[in-house]
């Protein structure tokens, strides 16, 4: 949308006469292509020639959503024709299937270079999904599944190029959902996807997209596998171990957000929705104290990381909720950390003042 990250180029006043003439000719060509497509649609001439024109236009401008709609109208019409031919016994079912597959593959191939050039264009991703869904509708489950399998390979490649691509991660979840669905005779891929996030995190600890996806997958896995309290606790232990290892960089907010997510297991206000809701009161207190000790150890090497003090405060406040109040000593610690936070994190001093106010009110 608009012009994100476009550095300055020559302004129009600086263009030469030739450059201006050339641009006017380009406008004329572009506009006549638009007009021809529009006339084609009005005349309901959904021909291969019209398809070629949409290809030419979309290569110049993949954001032109109306033209993607035209393209879909053309394909939908072709699919209808093939179905009719089968009904009229002019075509065999397997021939129909192979023709549908050809059309879909051909268009997926057309989209690939566009996607590489414009990886953030919503309309291209949408059109791919539409094509693949047509596959699910017209092909056998096996045939459609092969398309979706290839798509997973493609999205993995995209995420290797840009490991934080918002569309890429979203698209991956959609593809996985399809591969898991009954219509494609699928089964859960949660474990495989969980391993994928481990791999992505291993390549770049700061990948919040991967941590986020992991947080969702864990809940899904535990539910799918009907995990009991012991298994849930095991999963929690593994995640704590992983995040402790990652936090050798105590300045990385992605890690601290994930840590905060794990801490929600111990907070009476949030634990019901967390991965191990069955922890006893005593277990929760033990966990929180362990986390506090872990974070305290970090201070030694990272006394200037505001996240450390924030995490300490979270630990103590949760402990207070569990044990029915803060001890005088803890209260004093919290005040010290809050002062530290105001100093290290002046952008958010309003937040720290609010927190201080809330704690004081509670204490009084």
């Amino acid at each position, binding site marked *: 949308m*608009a*012009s*994100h*990250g*476009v550095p300055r180029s020559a302004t129009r006043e600086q263009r030469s006469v030739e450059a201006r003439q050339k641009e006017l000719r380009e406008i004329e060509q572009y506009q006549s292509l638009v007009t021809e497509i529009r006339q084609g649609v009005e005349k309901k001439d959904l021909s291969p020639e019209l398809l070629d024109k949409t290809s030419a236009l979309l290569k*110049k401008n993949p954001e032109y*959503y*109306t033209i993607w709609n035209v393209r879909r109208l053309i394909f939908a019409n072709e699919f209808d024709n093939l179905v009719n031919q089968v009904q009229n016994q002019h075509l065999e079912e397997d021939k129909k299937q192979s023709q549908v597959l050809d059309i879909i593959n051909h268009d997926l191939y057309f989209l690939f270079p566009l996607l590489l050039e414009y990886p953030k264009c919503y309309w291209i991703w949408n059109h791919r999904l539409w094509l693949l869904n047509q596959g699910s509708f017209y092909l056998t489950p096996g045939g459609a599944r092969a398309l979706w399998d290839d798509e997973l390979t493609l999205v993995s490649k995209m995420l290797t190029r840009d490991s934080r691509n918002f569309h890429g991660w979203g698209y991956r979840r959609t593809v996985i959902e399809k591969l898991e669905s009954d219509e494609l005779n699928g089964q859960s891929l949660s474990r495989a996807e969980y391993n994928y996030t481990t791999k992505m995190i291993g390549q770049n600890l700061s990948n919040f997209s991967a941590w986020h996806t992991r947080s969702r997958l864990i809940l899904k896995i535990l539910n799918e596998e009907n995990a009991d309290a012991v298994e849930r606790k095991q999963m929690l232990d593994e995640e704590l171990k992983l995040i402790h290892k990652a936090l050798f960089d105590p300045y990385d907010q992605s890690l601290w957000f994930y840590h905060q997510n794990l801490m929600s297991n111990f907070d009476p206000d949030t634990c019901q929705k967390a991965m191990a809701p069955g922890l006893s009161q005593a277990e929760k207190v033990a966990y929180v104290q362990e986390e506090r000790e872990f974070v305290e150890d970090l201070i030694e090497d990272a006394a200037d990381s505001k996240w450390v003090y924030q995490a300490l405060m979270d630990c103590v406040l949760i402990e207070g909720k569990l044990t029915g109040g803060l001890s005088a000593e803890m209260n004093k610690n919290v005040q010290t950390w809050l002062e530290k936070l105001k100093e290290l994190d002046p952008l958010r001093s309003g937040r720290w003042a*609010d927190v201080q106010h809330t704690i004081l009110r509670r204490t009084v």
Partner: protein
Amino acid sequence: MSLVSGPGRGGTHNQDALPDQLKLAVDQHVRYIRNLDTRKDELQYWLTEHLRLNGVYWGLTALHLLGHPEGLPRDATIKFVLDCHNIDGGFGAAPGHDSHMLYTVSAVQILATVDALPELESSKYGGKAKVADFIANLQDRESGTFAGDEWGEQDTRFLYCAFNALSILNMMDRIDVDKAVAYVKACENFDGSYGRIPGAESHSGQVFTCVGALAIARRLDLVSQDRLAAWLSERQLPNGGLNGRPEKLEDVCYSWWVLTGLSIIGKLHWIDKSKLSNFILRCQDTEHGGMSDRPGNMVDVFHTCFGVAGLSLLGYPGLRKVNPMYCMPDDVVQKLPYWHK
């Protein structure tokens, strides 16, 4: 209204300028927006036609907030909006473009801003009831969320657009609000923030749409306010600008997406307002007008609108007050019948 970027670039202010030397270049921005439609000899003007109606909304809103509602001719604006109306009741980006939720909401917002909603009744494709039907038909009655058009992409952006437009038209009863609200809640993540669909990663843009939708539905009780405000406040970077997700670059448009969420839940003071204000001012082209995403890049009307709206929300002197739920002049929203129920 051209969506072409440039001609200028943000950051013509001396980047070492002291904060009190930074001023909003009101006249230049007004001139910049008014001249956007004279740029038809640029290929980019035509390559961005698929955004035209959004562009009119961005330009018009910026002009109104800058105190120059006369900046775009009212009659021509209304005519252009109605020329984008289609037989299905929705609006396309420009005449001849297909209907989509994104442009339908812009059409309704523009007409409300210039106090011309009754003009809808003069459209040959039916009045506001027809527009409301178009929107209501895009609701997925199973899940409660909305598609953008007949081709089916679903996103909480479209759900928000539906709430925005239908509340302006005072026709929220056409949709299943409770189901839609439950869907928004399902998009909430552990960080208190929101994604496009359930399971999707949190994104500040989605906070604007999800919290905005809950606010319009009067269901802010569902927001995990402290958690969300903490996540949003971490979007501020040392240079004062805001980003959209952890570890991303700052961008003027997030001055709007992040700030509205904080404002709606009463936590605007959880970030450094004056630093943000200075960041936005540093993204101006003080000579040719317009704002860019960050200093040094080309200006465009999208960033100009959300930069000015951000400044208004921050209380920058002389600007008309903006409404954080709608990104429209607040007095326009206050007059809507929906808010007098």
